[in-house]
């Protein structure tokens, strides 16, 4: 480019010539800010006292950036930036639509609360081993997954958050944690390898990896290329990451082993990235294939939600119960994918918002209960209402939220999904959702009765410190849960807009390729 004056080069054939404004940079902020903060944290690895405040500041900046991005996306439609100014599909595009931007916002909100909770929960040793850098890099990976517009780039961000999550899982290096991390690592690597193979096949078919480009080329190749095979491969690969039945066995094997903050972050955020990837690929790129597979997806959804929650009923460790509740929630979200209607998809998106916040809050609640009652076992954990009524109040709200009962946030997405199932003529799917709600009430009601109402069965634990940050974190998460429950209109609006965004492929394609008319 130094020789620009010597030759007459028409840069507009290769590069995006429209100047980008600082507001356009909001698309890369949710990835760039956590990476830069993570790098700074690595450099000050030994000054562990700085870690908490640096990480919270970085995540808070990311949160502000996400809010700005979502506001812009809701106002002006999808926001696109192509890295290095090369024209798409040659440059890698970041394309934020209402779905990706809203999920990235909720994920970052959850991460801010987890970082606050970790300030007291993760000691100097955990920080020396890199809890906060791993967390920041994981959030960079999660943000990148939600915002990227390129299939291979999506794979890269999956790897970024997976490798960081391995680091978070082994933190502590106990036998149990290494055992859980090994299972998690091997089974997830199988899933991502499948994702990589599918992506190679997609590149072989389309000659491009830009999602908008694939979406507009898919129609012309339906007759000749094995697109259904490709869609099934993606369903399996992302279903594994989302912990859908029958490839969900890695989640109960690993989520009860790490530190409780790590489990909270994983249970809240990571499975939803898998669900998001399913929505993005199946609804935006392969709508006819999704319609063909909808019967299969509906059965997978029903099996995931019912078998998941049955697993929760059988457990006696609080963290294992929650692992199965996470799986059951994934089943509920897949129901909307099976339906594929705007109402069903909006229900899925709303459920994803709810599930991220509620599952993180439930895991953090388990952490608070552990520090107050001394253990996670439902056999000994008891008498919390008498000792700490505030914990009982948080527990009540969260149990109602997860079970889908008013006045908490779980009610409305389930209402939307049940209505969408009935409208699509699938009453058994609606019944499965309702039955899951009942079983969740039983499973978590049992937890509530045993831990909160039951008089103390064991000796009072030796004076553990009052978890002030724990209460603060729980309050910060219970507030949106109750708000979404009593005043759901704005959230339903965002969820509907997100559902419309993935159903409306021409707008997405048009935003990535502004100069060309969408086919």
């Amino acid at each position, binding site marked *: *480019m*130094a020789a620009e004056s010597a030759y007459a080069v028409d840069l507009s054939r290769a590069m*995006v010539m429209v*100047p*980008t*404004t*600082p507001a*356009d*940079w909001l698309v*890369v902020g949710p990835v*760039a800010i956590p*990476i*830069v903060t*993570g*790098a*700074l*944290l*690595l*450099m000050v*690895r*030994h000054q562990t006292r700085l870690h908490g405040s640096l990480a919270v500041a970085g995540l808070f900046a990311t949160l502000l950036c996400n809010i700005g991005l979502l506001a812009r996306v809701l106002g002006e439609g999808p926001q696109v*930036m*192509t*890295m*290095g*100014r090369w024209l798409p599909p040659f440059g890698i595009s970041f394309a934020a639509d209402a779905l990706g931007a809203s999920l990235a916002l909720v994920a970052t909100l959850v991460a801010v609360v987890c970082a606050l909770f970790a300030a007291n929960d993760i000691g100097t040793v955990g920080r020396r081993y*890199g809890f906060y*850098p791993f967390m920041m890099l994981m959030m960079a990976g999660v943000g990148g997954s939600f915002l990227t517009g390129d299939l291979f780039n999506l794979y890269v961000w999956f790897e970024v958050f997976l490798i960081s999550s391995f680091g978070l899982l082994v933190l502590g290096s106990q036998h149990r944690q290494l055992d859980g991390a090994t299972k998690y690592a091997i089974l997830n690597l199988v899933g991502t390898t499948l994702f990589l193979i599918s992506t190679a096949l997609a590149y072989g078919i389309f000659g491009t990896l830009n999602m908008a480009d694939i979406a507009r080329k898919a129609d012309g190749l339906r007759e000749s290329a094995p697109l259904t095979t490709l869609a099934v491969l993606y369903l399996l690969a992302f279903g594994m990451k989302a912990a859908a039945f029958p490839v969900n066995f890695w989640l109960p094997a690993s989520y009860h082993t790490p530190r409780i903050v790590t489990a909270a972050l994983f249970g809240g955020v990571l499975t939803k990235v898998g669900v998001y990837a399913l929505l993005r690929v199946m609804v935006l790129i392969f709508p006819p294939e999704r319609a063909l597979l909808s019967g299969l997806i509906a059965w997978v959804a029903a099996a995931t939600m019912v078998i998941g929650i049955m697993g929760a009923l059988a457990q006696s460790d609080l963290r294992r119960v929650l692992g199965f509740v996470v799986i059951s929630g994934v089943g509920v979200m897949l129901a909307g994918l099976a339906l594929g209607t705007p109402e069903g998809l909006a229900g899925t998106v709303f459920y994803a918002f709810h599930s991220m916040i509620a599952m993180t809050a439930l895991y953090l609640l388990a952490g608070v209960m552990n520090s107050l009652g001394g253990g996670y076992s439902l056999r000994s954990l008891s008498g919390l209402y008498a000792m700490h009524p505030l914990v009982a109040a948080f527990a009540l709200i969260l149990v109602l939220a997860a079970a889908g009962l008013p006045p908490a946030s779980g009610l409305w997405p389930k209402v939307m999904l049940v209505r969408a199932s009935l409208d699509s003529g699938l009453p058994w799917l609606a019944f499965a959702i309702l039955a899951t709600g009942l079983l969740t009430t039983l499973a978590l009601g049992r937890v509530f009765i045993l831990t909160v109402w039951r008089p103390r069965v064991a000796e009072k634990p030796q004076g553990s410190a009052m978890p002030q940050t724990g209460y603060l974190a729980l309050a910060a998460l219970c507030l949106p849960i109750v708000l979404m429950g009593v005043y759901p209109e704005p959230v339903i609006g965002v969820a509907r807009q997100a559902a419309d965004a993935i159903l409306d492929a021409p707008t997405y394609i048009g935003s990535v390729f502004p100069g060309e008319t969408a086919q």
Partner: protein
Amino acid sequence: MRTLIFRTIAPYLASLMVLFSVFVLLRGHNEPGGGFIGGLIAASAFAIYGIACGVAPVRRALYFHPMAISGFGLLVSGLSGVVSLFKDMPFLTGQWAEVHILGLAVDISTILFFDIGVYLVVVGAITSIALALEEREHV
């Protein structure tokens, strides 16, 4: 492995390899080479020095902890992408400047800084793994 021959030759070999890694890094813009392969060569140099003379001298010679070097590299790479913000261009767009050093015109670009960042990330990460493994061996 700590034979007299190896211990004598290792410092020279390591310093030559580090020098060569910098050459490969700078060559990488237009020809085969670059930050990743350069970083691997430098990390092998530190690993050889560690095998020959022990891990403690390597850590002393590096001065900074390898993970901190890695973090600094990530920071440099990340920030090199942000420069284009001030030129109304997208993230990671290469920016060029011509500077005169001792009468020579040299083109400096943000791409070079990105590559230096990659070099440091690879050096830091691989060296810290290699040193940790070598330490384990001598316990």
